């Protein structure tokens, strides 16, 4: 049944200095708990095959991963189709350990900002040091972009995955397009 849709139906744009596209649906689970507790570590790593991330890091491979959100929260990534199975496994692994695991896949929109100028596009919107020596693939930031909350990480150089709330998807898409408008290269990171 093709009744599920992403917020913008996979919109994309390449008229500017970076390629902006809405990613297909991505499974996301918010996991709150003591990140040093064995059951919590087992739940997060067991469901993804990834290590627990250090502060400010994302441990990702393909559609699976664990991202550090706060001292008591990680974001677990899994294929959208496997969300129920993954959540069930996480809950089983957590057992009686005080924690909260909940599906937030549909609460979010996911965008990819790609190209040699991707860093500059992001740096126009988020108060984050995106210098190539400072922000590297594998790092994860919860921050704001212009006027909305957002989080992002780089899976590889020149490609940012950006998460925002689903209701802000259109704003985020328009925002990224604005920041990537033709002729708006900054040239700040190019020197490095």
């Amino acid at each position, binding site marked *: 049944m093709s009744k599920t849709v992403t917020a913008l139906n996979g919109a994309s744009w390449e008229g500017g200095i970076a390629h902006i596209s809405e990613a297909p649906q991505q499974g996301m689970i918010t996991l709150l708990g003591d990140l040093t507790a064995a059951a919590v570590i087992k739940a997060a790593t067991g469901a993804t095959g990834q290590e627990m991330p250090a502060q400010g890091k994302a441990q990702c491979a393909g559609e699976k991963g664990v991202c550090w959100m706060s001292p008591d929260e990680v974001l677990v990534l899994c294929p959208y189709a496997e969300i129920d199975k993954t959540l069930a496994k996480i809950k089983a692994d957590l057992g009686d350990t005080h924690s909260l695991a*909940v599906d*937030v896949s549909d609460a979010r929109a996911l965008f990819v900002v790609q190209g040699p100028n991707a860093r500059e596009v992001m740096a126009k919107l988020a108060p984050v040091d995106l210098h190539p020596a400072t922000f590297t693939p594998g790092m994860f930031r919860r921050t704001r972009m212009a006027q909305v909350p957002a989080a992002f990480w780089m899976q590889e150089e020149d490609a940012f995955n950006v998460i925002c709330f689903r209701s802000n998807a259109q704003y985020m898409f328009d925002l990224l397009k604005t920041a990537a*408008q033709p002729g*708006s290269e900054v040239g700040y990171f190019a*020197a490095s």
Partner: protein
Amino acid sequence: MSTRLASGGRLVDQGQPINFSFNGNTLKGYAGDTLASALLANDQMLVGRSFKYHRPRGIVASGVEEPNALVNLGSGGTFEPNQRATTTELFDGLQATSQNHWPSLEFDVGAINAKLARFMPAGFYYKMFIHPRPLWKHVYEPFIRQAAGLGKAPKVRDEDTYEHFYAFCDVLVVGGGMAGLTAAKSAAASGAQVLVFEQTAHWGGRAPVDGGIVDGTPVDKVVDKLVSELSDMPNVTMRLRTMGAGVYDHGYVLGYEQLRDHAPKAQGPRHRLWRIRAGHVITATGALERPLSFAGNDIPGVMLASAVRDYVVNYGVSPGDRTVVVTNNDDAYRTALAIKHAGLSVPVILDARVPETDSPLMTAAKDAGIRVLMGHGVAKVLGGKRVTGVAVCAQAGEGAILEEIECDTVAMSGGWSPVVHLWSHCGGKLSWDNDFAMFRPDVDKAPTGQDGSGFVSAAGAANGHFGLSEVLSDAHASGGTAAKATGHAKSRRKAPKAESVDEAPMAPVWLMPQGAGVTLRGKAWLDYQNDVKVSDVQLAAQEGFESVEHAKRYTTLGMATDQGKLSNINGLAILSDALDQPIPQTGTTTFRPPYTPISMGAIGGEARGEVFQPVRRTAMYDWHEANGADWEPVGQWRRPLAYVQPGENLHDAVMRETKNVRENLGLLDASTLGKIIVKGPDAGRFLDMLYTNMMSTLKPGKCRYGLMCGENGFLIDDGVVARIDEDTFLCHTTTGGAEHIHGHMEEWLQTEWWDWKVYVANVTEQYAQIAVVGPKARAALEALGGMDVSQEELGFMEWADGSIGGFDVRVYRISFSGELSYEIAVKASEGQAFWDALMAVGAAHDVMPYGTEALHILRAEKGFIMIGDETDGTVIPQDLGLHWALSKKKEDYLGKRAHLRTHMADPTRWKLVGLETTDGSVLPDGAYAVAEGTNDNGQRNVQGRVTSTYHSPNLDKGIAMGLILNGPDRMGEVLEFPGTDGKTHSARIVSPVFYDPEGEKQNV
């Protein structure tokens, strides 16, 4: 007259002519010109009129300090007022018009004010227009507004785009002159990340004009070499046309980059606002030359000596054939020599000093055949719209004229003031330097960062060092300091060495001649832009405005768009003299960012048009839009107020929707309501503290309405709580409350009850939630097929998970309308599909979508309160008759203690009642019920107010709720509500529950 020289001009390309227009006349300039140099080349010395007296004013400076040459630039969507001609780069097709004159620049009616100057001293407006009071509003103010003002406000939307950019660096160098470049190189050699800003289009600052030899090489070549070396370093970023606008706490600096002002046809944003976090800031912002205060120093043709030099050397423009130089320092001699070198005439240098021996520059001037008069000054400038000559006097005297000398330009120099603005923005202190008569950064009192150490260093002229060799060693050292401060090893390289030139000491000259009488002082301008004279500042002191900040505001000295760049030091020297106290005791006014005005567009950045602000959309937004939604903003969300069908107006649509819910079936997009999961062994205990009523006793599978108060007892939110399992609750909040109630929960959990085992998660956006409401709701759901939604299986105030029409759903039997109602949550990605399924199956049950206005009427018919209508941050549950929701069993909850305060327990607090107009009309929203008598201010006493008011189509009359003094005890009484429409409305106090008081319809 001013004109273009046959050759020369290091910045212009005489092979590339450019056409531009000034006041409609097409003029010719060259690539590399500023608008000011091009105007001078076309003999357009008169460029504007002054603010108060409408005196003719000409170009004074060559940079950002220019007070007079402000023009309107562009037209239509690119129009911008108050642009400085001296910093506007010329481009083909540039359109400029002069400001503040009527009917024309050459003939201005307002100039009559100048004749009345004697009657318009400092504080004139304050003194004149205070009496009689009513005349201010109706006569004086409109007249003054018409007459005042520099440029005009733009009338159409700005066509351009703007952006912000967040940058982080170790060392930010503001200023790309020799000091800035040297400091940047010294810092960069240590490996630090360095960002260099230069506000003009050229590197090197004054050095290429002023000259000098560094390590055996002419300084202009040294600049080129430095720039090329720095550009090649991977850890250095260089930016021209970018100004350091302000320095703030924690190394935060704003930079203002003008990307396309010189190339309007280029793509991309016009301005970029750099929002920088710098480890260390070096202000290499140079110095500004001060004017001299002599009579007629504002007549077009009187210019700063350095500016005259700039126009000759940089742009190949002669400001005049005969230039009299008047000075109190050696630097102006460079101007005399440059003029002479260009083949023009310098009839005399008037030097206010009487030196014992000649300095090398004096000797050079004399050797060049220039007449030098020591101990002399200008008594007054001759001319009206243009200088025709100067009257020479002895500086020591009172202005007796010794001779008159014909000239068409006066180049004046009153010494130099370091640009200490950026140093001062964040608290850097200044010290007074007696030798140079200037304020300079007090290096021991730099702006301090979070660790208490200074995070700003001044370098070069900005630090009070003027000789090229002192500039270079100071800048080199600053770069090393900055590198060290940001954790890099100081470079061991030596500072470049310049050949030093001995200069005779300057002598402070604040008034010329020093004994100038009242007539001369009344024509000696301090602030050109705001028309403040020496005599005005002296009057302010005499009238008791002794503080520099008071004198500034009383006289308006330094309050124009140039923020007193030329006038401040001269003004406070005059003030100090009038108060008979040393200058440092008078002090300076506060330096505030931005250094020069920056565009509103740059401040707004990308936030304009479709991304002006976020608009939050539910999963069904597009459907609503396509089906006639009239949108209501609710926080950042857009919710349909009503769906207007062809042939009806908004009111018709609301009435239709409201009736249909009671009679048939309505669908409401309720997705925006907050949904917060609260889980853990202490979840029940936690919710008992947050809500006023008991939540821990709620059974899994059940729902309960709850009220939330803040610590002070006032209502902050309400909503239905569902218990999911023993450890888990789902709390619904209002649409606007989702984020801040989530934050409220986290705050209490993190700061007070940190040892309680509770986790909360905001899952509002995970779900699309649709209210299926009306007597036919069950039949429709049954037709769609799936889980049992009967009264027996799913009773009122119960919830259940299941499947309907093939969708995984969670169904809540809750009702905000008083009708049979199911609120059904599905995954947001399936929201539209589920809505479509409900619309399809509902067709047989007369389904209609309904919006928030119908929702409001339906709840008002039932007497249900709405947070934000019945509450406004000052209302407590007791005011709304919600005593039943205040648990008496609980020992404590947020707000409980506050409710015991005398004011909260006061029986005369206004209480909620229903209101019904005597004629069936609708009460005006927010109207007050009047009482007998008047208060101390002579206003009618009041005894209540309307909080919600609607026309109810189901009852066919106006219904309202309101908070009324002793309301519940006054049933049946009729109150009067004067409206703003002049009518007085009468309404009877009734029960707030207008419809189905027994609640039978929702529980079927």
